[in-house]
Every structure is written in structure tokens, then in C-alpha cells.
């Protein structure tokens, strides 16, 4: 009985500090206490209002789920699985990019054709994930992609293709492409990054704002692939 009381107290202390409470096996009577405690916690005025950041973030997540498109307001085309599955003129895409990219791929480019390799795009741990056709990423037009848990931008720097995370390193908001300024803007705070992921914000000291993580990228058969760890 004493242990159970401690468990209930642990739950109460956690929710009073708005922490995720510890989990434990509860009898019905304790479960009722936890539920009443939760209801009381919600009674503090304003306590049960959703955070605007959460509302925005969930809407973006739903947008991806519902129609596979995000960041439209920023004008960034978003690669969707549907789109990738549609197949692409792979050989033409490879040709369009030119030879520059070949030097930076992690693995030598395989023979032309083989577009069927785009069928499997669901990222598994430690796997290469196909995110775009090279032809879809001209210089100056970064491409927003979403591959499972991975959110990023593919950027063609002219002599190489790279990818950076699309999640702000300050608050985890999804960055928008600012096409005209050629940078990535955080919708939540005055924070922005260069297309190489380096922080550019005036409002934050560079030390405070970490650069966007670079994502390992390679080109195979005219397709850009990103490594998911």
C-alpha cells in the first residue's frame, strides 16, 4: 500500500511540474486517483491550452500525412513518396546534372537505367533513402524532402549535392525555404540558416545557434539518396 501511495505521489509531483509522469502498474483505485489528479491539474487556468508551437507542428505533420506536401507557403517543392514512386527519367536526370556530382558520391554511379530501385523508400535504420531525382534539384532551387523520420533539404551547390536537416537547432520547428534570400528560415523564431546549414541569424550569437546537421548524401543512377542513421 505504501509503495502504491508513493507511486501516486510520484505521478502527482510530475504533473504538477508538467513533466511526463512515471509509468507503473496501478490498481483501479489508484487509477481513479491519477485521473482525478489529472483533471485537477487541468483546472489551473490556462494549463490545458495547447502550445502554439505544438498546434503548428502537428498541422505540418498532418499535412505531410494527408497530402504529402509541406512548406508550400515557402514555395519549396516537397518530394513525396508518391512522387518518387511515379518513376523518373533517370538517365536524363543524371545527364542533366553533369559530371560534377559524380566526384562526391560515396559509391560509384551504377549503370544507367534501373529506375525500379526507387520503389523502396521507407527508411530503415542505417539505410540509404532515395529522396529526389537529381534533375529536380537545379542550382538555386533547394528541394524539401521528407523520408520517414528524416526531414531535410537537398541542395545543389553546383559542384556537389548535399543535404541538411530541415529542423531548426534552436526549437525543433521545421524550416521554410526562403527562395529569394537563398536561406532556410525558422517559422518559430528569428533564426535562419544558409543553404549549407550555417546559422545566419542576427538575433542569435553563432555560438548559441548550432549549424544544421549535414546529412550524408550520394547520387546513384541520377537519384539523390540520403543516409538515415
Amino acid at each position, binding site marked *: 500500500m505504501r509503495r502504491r*501511495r508513493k507511486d501516486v505521489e510520484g505521478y502527482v509531483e510530475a504533473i504538477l511540474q508538467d513533466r511526463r509522469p512515471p*509509468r507503473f502498474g496501478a490498481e*483501479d483505485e489508484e487509477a481513479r486517483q491519477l485521473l*482525478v489528479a489529472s*483533471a*485537477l491539474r487541468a483546472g489551473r487556468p490556462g494549463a490545458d491550452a495547447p502550445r502554439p508551437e505544438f498546434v503548428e507542428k502537428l*498541422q505540418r505533420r498532418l499535412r505531410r500525412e494527408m*497530402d504529402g506536401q509541406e512548406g508550400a507557403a515557402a514555395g519549396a517543392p516537397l518530394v*513525396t513518396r508518391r512522387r518518387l514512386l511515379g518513376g523518373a527519367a533517370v538517365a536524363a536526370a543524371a545527364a542533366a546534372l553533369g559530371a560534377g556530382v559524380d566526384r562526391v558520391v560515396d559509391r560509384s554511379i551504377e549503370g544507367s537505367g534501373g529506375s525500379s530501385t526507387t520503389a523502396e523508400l521507407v527508411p530503415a535504420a542505417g539505410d540509404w533513402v532515395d529522396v529526389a531525382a537529381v534533375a529536380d534539384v537545379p542550382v538555386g532551387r533547394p528541394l524539401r524532402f521528407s523520408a520517414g523520420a528524416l526531414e531535410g533539404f537537398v541542395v545543389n551547390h553546383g559542384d556537389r549535392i548535399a543535404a541538411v536537416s530541415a529542423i531548426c537547432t534552436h526549437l525543433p520547428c521545421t524550416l521554410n525555404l526562403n527562395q529569394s534570400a537563398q536561406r532556410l528560415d525558422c517559422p518559430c523564431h528569428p533564426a535562419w540558416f544558409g543553404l549549407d546549414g550555417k546559422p545566419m541569424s542576427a538575433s542569435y550569437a553563432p555560438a548559441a545557434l548550432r549549424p544544421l546537421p549535414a546529412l550524408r548524401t550520394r547520387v546513384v543512377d541520377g537519384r539523390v539518396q540520403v543516409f538515415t542513421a
Partner: protein
Amino acid sequence: MQQPWEPRVEQSPSTSPAIHVLGEPAGWEEVYREHVGPVYRYCYARTGNRADAEDISEQAFLRALPRLRLRASAPEIRSYLMATARSVLAEHWTLHYGCDVGLLDEEVASPEVEERRPGEDAGVSRAARVLAALPEHYRRVLELRFLRGYSVRETAGAMGITVTNAKVLQHRALRRAAQEELP
């Protein structure tokens, strides 16, 4: 009213049949914005913390929205979203606390929350109702701790009792409140 989100722009017309699942591309976003507050509050009042309330609300919308007929009436949509949230909540309590789902169903189905109108603060009124049913010293300890955010020590000071007694009082008050609210 000006919407805070800009209209979506179709970037690749060749993929439009797959992307525009419904004839009204912004429809679900309106549904989301109208209901996210009530769904979240519903979840918060049954978890008492932001992290779980956010996770459960997210799961509820992810589960419900793709299945939703957007032409359904607003009450039907609300009811479906709440039912989905309720089932995610029941899973949460079963998984993490081994609770009887029947108890949860009874709890989360309490109608006063579902019938709440926008702007009405059901969280506050429900807490007030729970407290009103208690003897004064029980009401007082829960008020100080839950509504005013006092620590145990501050509560003990305010009530002129020892910290140990404040803990015991809180425990008994919560138990009594549970008996009153969820018989």
C-alpha cells in the same frame, strides 16, 4: 477571417491526382484548426501533463483525419475525433498503467466535456466541481497544490500543518476526490 496559413500551392502538376485526395484541399486543415483545442484539452484533462497530452492528441488526429468524411456535420466530426482520442487515451492508460479499459471508457466518456462549447473552460469547472464535493480541509489542500501550484512545504505553511501531515492530507483528499468523482 484571415487564415493564418497561406493556401497551398501545387508545385508539381504531374502528381496532382495523387496529392489532391479530396476536392477541397484545405478542408481537413479547417477541421484540424477547429478541433485541435478541444481534443487537446480533452487529452490534457486525462493525462495532466503536456507531453502525454501532445502525444495522444497527435495520435488521435493521425488516426482520425484520414478516415474522416469532411462533409459530415461539425458535431459528427467532433464526436468522431473525441471517440478516437478516447480510444488512444484508453490504450495509453492500459499500456502505461495497466488500467482497466472499462474504467477509462466510463471516465473519458463523461458527457459534459464532449458537449462543451468553444470558449467554455471545462477544465476549470470540472476541477471546481471535484473540489466543491470535498470537506474543507481536503478541498483546501488540493486547491493549494493543483490550482495554485504550491509545493508541499508551501501548502503545509499555508495550512499551519507539518509537511508530513500535508502529504497525508493530500493523499487522503485525492483518494476521497476519486471516490466522489469516479465511483
